């Protein structure tokens, strides 16, 4: 469990003060993958660097392993940092060291014996799928492989939490997915808490259990990924959610279907979790005498189950339409009737 309370960071420069992180409070249960999303300049990068005190917080506290990180003195902080793994957007590997030596570096820092180091490094190389590349130098590796080395290095001292600072932002989409899969398998295998920051909703959707949306240093929304996806409250969150379902942009095109005709209603259905897998539409049209015209739809898998959006036009008598809507609602799918604005 990591608990962050009223965390703030103010940067004072010559002619201005910048409140990079503004009164952020978050609780992260053990074993959770917690995502922080925001546009550049939202303060998410500063936020994650406050957790291992690469930046010193101006105010607030960070409770990790029952210790307040913000109160630690230099020596204690160094010890504690060994238990906080971190991976970076640009990998930050030492080019002068081989893959093996890079992964051994944190173990050297922790004062682990040479034999023990060797055993541990080989184990980690296996874990991240880099067998056979032990003696390669980082310059001989692809971006994805470099990040694998970064991950192995971050895990070397068996940390209780892994911080990911835009860990996939420098990778192509396919490699990003590979790295995300690796993070999920590590999370499951080691029950490791992961905190990641990103500007890609895709990353949050794919691997996070919980998400916080940051804007101008503040957390404007946080909660279970599915909840936040389905019912985004703030404008920023809505924009992020739109990244995932490009359909939301095309809502204008639905307008031609939305009429004042009582025999027809356009509705938006939110499928959450297992409901997304049901053949609900054919069920409804079989049970009740309605025509259902599918206009557009999309489905996005997340860590906690899938979530989908479907726009349909229901045609029939007004009472039957009402019945259909109640039927759909009773099956746990949310329904929103669209009208002309």
């Amino acid at each position, binding site marked *: 469990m990591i608990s962050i309370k009223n965390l703030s960071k103010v940067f004072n420069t010559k002619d201005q003060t910048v409140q990079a992180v503004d009164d952020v409070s978050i609780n992260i249960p053990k074993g959770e993958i917690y995502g922080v999303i925001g546009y550049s300049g939202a303060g998410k990068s500063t936020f994650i660097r406050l957790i*291992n005190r*690469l930046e010193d917080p101006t105010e607030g506290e960070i409770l990790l392993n029952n210790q307040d990180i913000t109160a630690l003195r230099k020596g204690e*902080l*160094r*010890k*504690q*940092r*060994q238990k*906080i793994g*971190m991976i*970076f957007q*640009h990998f*930050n*590997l*030492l*080019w*002068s*060291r081989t893959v093996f030596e890079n992964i051994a*570096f*944190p173990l*050297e*820092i*922790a004062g682990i014996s040479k034999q023990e180091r060797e055993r541990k490094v080989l184990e980690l190389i296996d874990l991240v799928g880099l067998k056979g590349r032990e003696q390669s*130098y*980082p*310059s001989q590796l692809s971006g994805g492989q470099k990040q694998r080395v970064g991950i192995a*290095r971050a895990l070397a*001292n068996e940390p209780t939490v892994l911080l990911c600072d835009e860990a996939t932002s420098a990778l192509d989409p396919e490699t990003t997915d590979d790295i995300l899969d690796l993070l999920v398998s590590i999370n499951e295998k080691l029950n490791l808490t992961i905190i990641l920051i990103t500007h890609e909703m895709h990353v949050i959707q794919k691997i996070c259990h919980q998400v916080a949306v940051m804007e101008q240093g503040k957390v404007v929304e946080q909660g279970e990924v599915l909840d936040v996806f389905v019912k985004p409250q703030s404008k920023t969150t809505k924009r992020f959610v739109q990244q995932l379902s490009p359909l939301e942009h095309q809502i204008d095109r639905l307008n031609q279907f939305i009429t004042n005709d009582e025999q027809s209603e356009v509705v938006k259905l939110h499928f959450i979790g297992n409901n997304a897998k049901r053949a609900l539409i054919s069920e409804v049209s079989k049970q009740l005498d309605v025509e259902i015209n599918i206009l557009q739809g999309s489905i996005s898998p997340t860590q906690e189950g899938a979530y989908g959006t479907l726009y349909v036009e229901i045609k029939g008598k007004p009472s039957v339409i009402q019945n259909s809507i109640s039927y759909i609602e009773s099956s746990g799918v949310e329904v929103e009737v669209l009208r002309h604005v």
Partner: protein
Amino acid sequence: MFNELFPNVQMDHLWTATYETFYMTIISVVGTFIFGILLGLLLYLTARGNLWQNSIVNSITATVVNVFRAIPFIILILLLFPFTDFLVGTIRGPEAALPALIIGAAPFYARLVEIALKEVDKGVVEAAQAMGAKAHTIIFKVLLPESMPALISGITVTAIALISYTAMAGVIGAGGLGDLAYMQGFQRRNFDVVFLCTVFIVVIVFIFQFIGDWFSRKIDHR
């Protein structure tokens, strides 16, 4: 053939002088490497935003470095005569040239070291900090290894400057090929001696350049 072309060259003198030049160069390169890295590290680490940020130490070090770099080498030797006498016990011969050579070259090399260290990716230093590394670990396991190719090419450039400094020191009695060229060559109007000394010095420069380039390339895995 050789005697006809170079009638005034005495081979034993030439070899002794070559040995002395090598001796002065190698010892002073080692000394410059050590002191230059220490000074360069101090310049780098005490600069704004770095590990030991300290503007007072930084500006004092920078001033010392700049002053010594500004003094022409030939004058520096003369200035350092009392110091050399105290340290080495004499002001003549190859040993006596060493303090001036090192003090003259180390500040120059320190600036090259500083530049090399600045080129080290800040992210890598940060990664080491995030792992809980101590300052000396960061210096010896991150900063120096990561800047090594630049440190090597820097010391190569400095070594070549040092070879030319040894020749200058030779003129005021330090021995070596410069001494030979001036005393037995120029003073006696034996230009064959001057010419052959020049050739030897050029060869020594090439040797150092070659070793430096080879080594720098070998350890560079970027």
